[in-house]
């Protein structure tokens, strides 16, 4: 049958299991939007393309499914860049479809023309500029495959306006043509390498697991829990690995690195075997590489060969899908006692717990603890980037994978609000909470309009310290308390702003109101913004100063009277 290029793209997206699009129309993408409407494809109209990209990202992180982001040519497309790189750094699949000026106009600096193909090369896993409507079927199929196989990531398909309207023959049953070389099947995990890992484990007295986002993406959480509990190995979760191992398990050690728990960092410094599972040794995790796990044999299981040996010298590299590797390990691993090591870890947990002072002000950690209590760790929790993000990772306890979504690699402030909206579309059965900072929230708060328009019942808790808090913390500690341009003394009234968007707003200045406001928010039928005026001087502890080793961690403020 004959169809337009846009129709074919939509048909192929549907056939590939894609159920939802987020975006904004504009000149060069109008034919595609016209066909979206005709095809009755579910679409969420956002206020900014960056928001649309983060929504698709949040949707994918909580559901494991892939969504489409649609933007017009030029500024619409360039507005996606931050969202694409956020997804790329955290290995999140999404498909961006952008309009482009008509093919005869390409290269003429036409109205709203941008070389989005060139712009998006470094921020996507792969991208295409489609110059012939007959290619669309194959390109969309490949786009879905590239985004979702191996190490997932974002892709972009740029479709000129005349290609969207061009009519061509379409056979939905047409067999897939020769796939791209890199969409090969992943090799089966190397049995020899797994054997080496088993031997190292049998010899180890103080093993530790570092479990990253790979556990969640590979659906390996159950295998991980079985492995860790059977072999009695304490588990550290990276920021993006949170939820990959139950936060309530006695073997759970929390997050490592710059703002990790003291006991996680002690365990890294003392372990004699580190088993890294789908984690990429980010600099925030390792600290100074030369003093990272100084006593340990390092085993690294990863689906991406380029991650193995990239930052940390690996003694036992295991290339493969982490679920399959764990499955093999679980068939071989013998139950172990490991009493001395586990006692040591327990002692650290008892002697160096996460803590914060109490002075009658609203402490941000207290708000997070209250959210944890009210939800029982059963919700989905999104964050922006900064101090609040670290406190959320420290004080929330996740019971299952895909419950915590945060921009880890790129550290994109403003990620939280749109990502939490996307998350609610991905998991409508779950309560979605956003823990945000005033700085992060202000960057994308326009998407309150989207939450309002679609009545998306997200619960937004702003931990408002009227500062770019993490910048302020570094200025206090490393820049002689010179608070260079990190202060927002005239922050808007976020509760009133929320009301302006038709969203329920609370402004909270009294610590005694925290609990009741959170409870009211949890019951509210629709989106809620809670503006908690927290203690502006609160810092995140422990802290490993930038460039220092994890063994140089500072547990608490330098002098006690600052506490």
């Amino acid at each position, binding site marked *: 049958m004959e169809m337009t290029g846009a129709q074919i793209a939509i048909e192929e997206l549907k056939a590939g299991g894609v159920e939802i699009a987020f975006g904004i129309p504009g000149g060069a993408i109008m034919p595609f939007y016209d066909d979206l409407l005709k095809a009755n494809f579910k679409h969420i109209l956002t206020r900014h393309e960056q928001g649309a990209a983060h929504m698709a990202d949040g949707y994918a992180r909580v559901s494991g499914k892939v969504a489409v982001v649609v933007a017009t040519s030029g500024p619409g497309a360039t507005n996606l860049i931050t969202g694409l790189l956020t997804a790329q750094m955290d290995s999140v699949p999404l498909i961006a479809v952008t309009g482009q000026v008509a093919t005869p106009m390409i290269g003429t600096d036409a109205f709203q023309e941008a070389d989005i193909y060139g712009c998006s090369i470094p921020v996507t*896993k792969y991208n295409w500029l489609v110059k012939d409507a007959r290619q669309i079927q194959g390109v969309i199929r490949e786009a879905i495959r590239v985004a979702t196989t191996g190490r997932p990531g974002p892709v972009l398909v740029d479709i000129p306006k005349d290609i969207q309207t061009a009519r061509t023959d379409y056979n939905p049953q047409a067999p897939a043509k020769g796939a791209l070389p*890199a969409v090969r099947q992943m090799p089966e995990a190397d049995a020899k390498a797994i054997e080496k890992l088993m031997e190292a484990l049998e010899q180890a007295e103080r093993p530790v697991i570092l479990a990253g986002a790979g556990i969640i993406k590979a659906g390996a959480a159950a295998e991980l829990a079985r492995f860790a509990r059977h072999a009695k190995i304490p588990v550290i979760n990276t920021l993006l690995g949170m939820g990959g191992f139950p936060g309530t398990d006695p073997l759970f050690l929390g997050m490592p690195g710059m703002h990790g728990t003291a006991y996680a960092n002690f365990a890294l410094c003392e372990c004699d075997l580190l088993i890294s599972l789908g984690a990429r040794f980010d600099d925030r995790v390792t600290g100074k590489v030369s003093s990272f796990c100084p006593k340990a044999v390092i085993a690294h299981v990863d689906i991406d060969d380029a991650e193995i*040996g990239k930052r940390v010298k690996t003694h036992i590299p295991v290339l493969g899908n982490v679920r399959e590797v764990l499955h093999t390990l679980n068939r071989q691993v013998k139950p172990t006692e490991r009493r001395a090591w586990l006692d040591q870890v327990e002692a650290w947990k008892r002697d160096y717990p996460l803590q914060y002072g109490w002075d009658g002000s609203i402490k941000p950690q207290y708000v997070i603890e209250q959210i944890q209590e009210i939800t029982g760790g059963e919700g989905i929790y999104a964050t922006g980037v900064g101090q609040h993000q670290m406190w959320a990772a420290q004080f929330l306890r996740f019971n299952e994978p895909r419950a915590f979504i945060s921009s880890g690699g790129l550290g994109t402030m403003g990620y939280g609000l749109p990502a939490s909206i996307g998350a609610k579309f991905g998991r409508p059965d779950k309560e979605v909470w956003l823990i945000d900072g005033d700085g992060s929230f202000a960057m994308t708060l326009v998407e309150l309009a989207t939450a309002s328009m679609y009545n998306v019942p997200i619960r937004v808790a702003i931990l408002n310290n009227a500062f770019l808090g993490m910048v302020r913390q570094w200025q206090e500690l490393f820049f002689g308390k010179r608070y260079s341009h990190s202060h927002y003394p005239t922050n808007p009234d976020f509760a009133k702003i929320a009301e302006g968007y038709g969203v329920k707003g609370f402004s909270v200045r009294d610590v005694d109101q925290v609990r009741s406001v959170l409870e009211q928010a949890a019951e509210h039928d629709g989106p809620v913004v809670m503006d908690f005026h927290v203690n502006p001087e609160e810092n995140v502890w422990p802290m490993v100063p930038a460039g220092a080793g994890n063994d140089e961690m500072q547990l608490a403020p330098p002098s006690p009277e600052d506490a």
Partner: protein
Amino acid sequence: MSPEEKNGGPSHTIAVLVENKFGVLAKVASLFSARGYNIDSLSVGVTQDPTVSRITLVTRGDERVLEQIRKQLSKLIDTIKVMDMVKEETVQREMMLVKVSAPRRERAEILQIVEVFRARIVDLSAETLTIEITGDDGKIAAFLELLAPFGVKEIARTGKAALSRGPRTLKSVKS
């Protein structure tokens, strides 16, 4: 590590088979600039299979950097195969055109050098000679050094081409 440290170390020749299509070269170039690797030279051409191109690039770095370059190149979606072209196990050649000042009284001497290096004169004018020479790094460097006193006015180099010695090939296994 600073980019300078990153790109210190000996030079390596890497051959990459890629899909022969729009944008692939941009993706390879983007990878090198994004990760701070240097490209000393790069040559691209279609292979006996018209859907496959062969890129030969010369870069510098220690073994760790080189391993990353190989792995990152392999990770590119359009990459079919990556191979280290170790000097001793490969034949490596580059072609250079060089325009040198050649007033009448110095021509004989230049022609002698051309002869010894088995280079060829491909163009001449009253003041200049244009010479074509093919060889490995060492030969081309030596040739340029000998021409320098005469005044090298312009050079154009193709970048390196390299093949394994013996029957071994860099086969493109396309699915």
